[in-house]
C-alpha cells in the first residue's frame, strides 16, 4: 500500500518505458525504497538499523561466498584451511576472514539495536504485528546460521560448541538421543556434522534474505512507524524515502562501516575466543566453554536451571532458553496498550530500561564461568526476563495512564517533541 499522495513512477527514457511494460523492477524499487514510498518525517537514527541489518547481511553473503572458495569442510583439514591457507596464503584472505567473523558481530549489534528499537517504540503493535513476527523468524534463522558458521573453523570452541548445542536436543525425553545422533550424523561431532553445517550455513543466509523481503513487504502495507507512534494523518506528515532517508541511512551506513573497519583492522580478535585458535580435540574439553558474545544472555538462561522440578533441570534450561525467544512471538498480544511509543508511557519506559539492564547482566553472566555467584545472579535475571514479558508488561498495559499524545506527527515536529532531539528538529527547518 502507499498513501494517496505518494509520488508516481513515470519512466522518461524509451528504454525505461519498455522495461516498465515488460518487467517493472525499477517501479518496484521506486515504490519500495525510492521516492514513491512516503515515510514519516520524524524518524530518528534508530530507524537506520533496518537498512544497516540489510547491509550487514549483504557483507556476510559476499565475504562468505568468497571464503567458501578456499575453505575445506573436512574435519582433518578445516582448521588448517582457515588458519593456514585463508589467513596466510590466500590473497587478502585474512581480510575476508576477519571481515566475515567480525561482520557477524556487527550484524548482531545492529539487529539487537533494531529489536530494542522495536520494543521501545512499540513497533510490534497493530497494524505491524506481522512485521514483528517475521522479524523474530529472521532472528531465529540468524542464530542458527551464526552457530553453524562458528563450528566451521573446527577449533576447540567450534567443536565443543557443537557438542553442547546439539546436546540440547538430547534433553528431549525418550527420543532426544536419537535426534542428536541424527543431527550430527554420528555419535560425536565429526566430518558428517561439519559438512552438513557448512551446507546449511551456505543456504540459510539466502532463506534470511527471502524472509527479509517478506518483512519489508509486510512493513510497506501499513507503512513505517515513527517515534511518536501516532499514525500518519496527511501529506504534511511524510517525506519521500528518497532522497530524505536514503541520505540519512547513508550517513548511518558510513558510521557503521567506520566501526566495522576499526574492528577488522585494529581489534580483529577482540570479540572471538582465543581457544578457537587451538584445533578441535575430541578428547579434551576446554576449561570454560562459552558461545560467541551474542548468545551469552541465552546461555545464561540455559545454565540457570540447576535442580530438577518435575522435569529434569537440563530440559528446563533448554525449554527456558528457546522460550525466551519464542515468547517474542506473543509480544503483540501480551502488551495490550494501544499507545505504541514508550515516549508517552512513563511506566512502560522504566520497565523497558530495566529489561535492557537485565539482558546486559544476563549477557555478562553467560560469558562468565559457572561460579555459584554468577549462577544466582543469572537465575534472578532470567526470572525477571520472563516476568517482564508475562506479568509486568501486561499489567502496565492495563493500569498505566499515558501522557497525552500529539494530535499529529507534524504537530509533534513543530512543537519539537517528535521523539527526535530538539536540535535535530531545529535543523530540519
Amino acid at each position: 500500500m502507499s498513501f494517496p499522495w505518494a509520488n508516481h513512477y513515470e519512466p522518461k527514457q524509451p528504454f525505461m518505458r519498455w522495461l516498465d511494460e515488460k518487467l517493472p523492477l525499477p517501479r518496484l524499487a521506486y515504490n519500495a525504497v525510492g521516492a514513491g514510498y512516503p515515510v514519516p518525517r520524524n524518524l530518528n537514527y534508530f530507524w537506520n538499523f533496518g537498512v544497516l541489518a540489510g547491509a550487514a547481511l549483504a557483507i556476510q553473503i559476499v565475504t562468505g561466498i568468497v571464503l567458501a572458495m578456499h575453505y575445506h569442510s573436512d574435519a582433518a583439514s578445516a582448521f588448517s584451511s582457515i588458519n593456514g591457507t585463508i589467513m596466510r596464503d590466500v590473497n587478502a584472505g585474512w581480510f575476508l576472514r576477519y571481515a566475515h567473523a567480525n561482520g557477524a558481530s556487527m550484524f548482531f549489534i545492529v539487529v539487537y539495536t533494531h529489536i530494542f528499537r522495536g520494543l521501545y517504540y512499540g513497533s510490534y503493535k497493530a497494524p505491524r504485528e506481522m512485521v514483528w513476527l517475521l522479524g523474530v523468524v529472521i532472528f531465529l534463522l540468524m542464530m542458527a546460521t551464526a552457530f553453524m558458521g562458528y563450528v566451521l573453523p573446527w577449533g576447540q570452541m567450534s567443536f565443543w560448541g557443537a557438542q553442547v548445542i546439539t546436546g540440547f536436543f538430547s534433553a528431549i525425553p525418550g527420543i532426544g538421543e536419537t535426534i542428536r545422533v541424527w543431527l550430527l550424523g554420528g555419535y560425536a561431532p565429526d566430518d558428517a556434522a561439519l559438512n552438513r553445517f557448512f551446507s546449511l550455513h551456505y543456504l540459510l543466509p539466502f532463506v534470511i534474505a527471502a524472509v527479509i523481503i517478506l518483512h519489508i513487504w509486510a512493513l510497506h502495507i501499513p507503512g513505517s512507524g515513527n517515534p511518536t507512534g501516532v499514525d500518519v494523518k496527511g501529506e504534511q506528515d511524510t517525506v519521500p524515502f528518497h532522497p530524505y532517508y536514503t541520505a540519512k541511512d547513508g550517513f548511518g551506513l558510513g558510521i557503521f562501516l567506520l566501526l566495522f573497519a576499526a574492528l577488522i583492522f585494529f581489534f580483529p580478535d577482540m570479540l572471538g575466543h582465543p581457544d578457537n585458535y587451538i584445533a578441535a580435540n575430541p578428547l579434551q574439553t576446554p576449561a570454560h566453554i562459552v558461545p560467541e558474545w551474542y548468545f551469552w544472555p541465552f546461555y545464561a538462561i540455559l545454565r540457570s536451571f540447576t535442580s530438577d522440578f518435575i522435569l529434569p533441570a537440563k530440559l528446563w534450561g533448554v525449554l527456558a532458553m528457546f522460550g525466551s525467544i519464542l515468547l517474542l512471538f506473543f509480544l503483540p498480544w501480551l502488551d495490550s496498550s494501544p499507545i505504541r511509543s514508550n515516549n508517552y508511557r512513563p511506566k512502560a519506559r522504566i520497565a523497558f530500561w530495566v529489561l535492557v539492564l537485565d539482558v546486559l547482566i544476563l549477557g555478562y553472566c553467560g560469558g562468565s564461568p559457572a561460579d555459584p555467584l554468577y549462577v544466582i545472579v543469572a537465575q534472578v535475571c532470567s526470572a525477571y526476563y520472563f516476568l517482564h514479558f508475562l506479568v509486568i508488561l501486561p499489567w502496565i498495559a492495563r493500569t498505566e495512564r499515558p501522557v497525552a499524545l500529539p494530535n499529529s506527527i507534524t504537530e509533534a515536529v513543530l512543537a519539537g517533541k517528535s521523539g527526535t532531539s530538539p536540535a535535530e528538529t531545529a535543523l530540519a527547518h
Partner: protein
Amino acid sequence: MATVDDVIPEGESPDSVSDPRRRDFLNIAAVAFPATAGAVAVLFPLINQMSPSADVLAESTTTVDLSKIQPGQGVITTFRKQPLFVRNLTPKEVAEANAVPLSELRDPETLEKRTQPGHENWLITLGVCTHLGCIPLGINEGDNRGKFGGYFCPCHGSQYDTAGRIRQGPAPKNLAVPPYKFTSPTAILVG
C-alpha cells in the same frame, strides 16, 4: 471435454450441485493418495541420509587391554569417536560406591548393575557428561574428581561418584555404560 460427470441431472439447478461432486471426489482421492505416498517415499531418504552412515557405524567396536591399568588408575580411549573412560577402582572406591543408599541417587543404579559380574572394580563408561556432552575430569591422576571422588565436569559443575553416578549439578543421568564384554580376564570388547 464434456463427460457424463459434467451433465447436471434433471431437476437439479446448477446451484444445488455440491462442489466437489461425488465423482470429482473419486478423482481427487485417486490422485491425492498415490501423490502423498510418493511424496513420503521421496522425503524419507532425504531425511534419513542424515543418520550415521555405514562408515561411521563400521567403527563401532573398540578393544581395550586392561593388563597395564593398576587399581586407582584409569585410561581414556575412544569408542564411536567418543571418549571412553576405563577405570580400575580401588577397594575403597568400590566400598564408597556401595555405601550410598539408592534413595539418595538421581538416577538410581547400583555399582553391581553398572559393572560386570566378578569385575566390580572395572568401571567402563562413556566420558561424556550427560548434561551437554563435555568430557568430565577425573580419569587422569591429579584431576579434580569433585566432591564424590568420581568425575567432575568443568563446564557446568556436574559431580559424579566412584560408580560414575550423577550426584550433584545439572546432569540428569549417570555416565552411560556402553555394551561390552570381557574377551579374556584382561581385555574387553566394547560395542
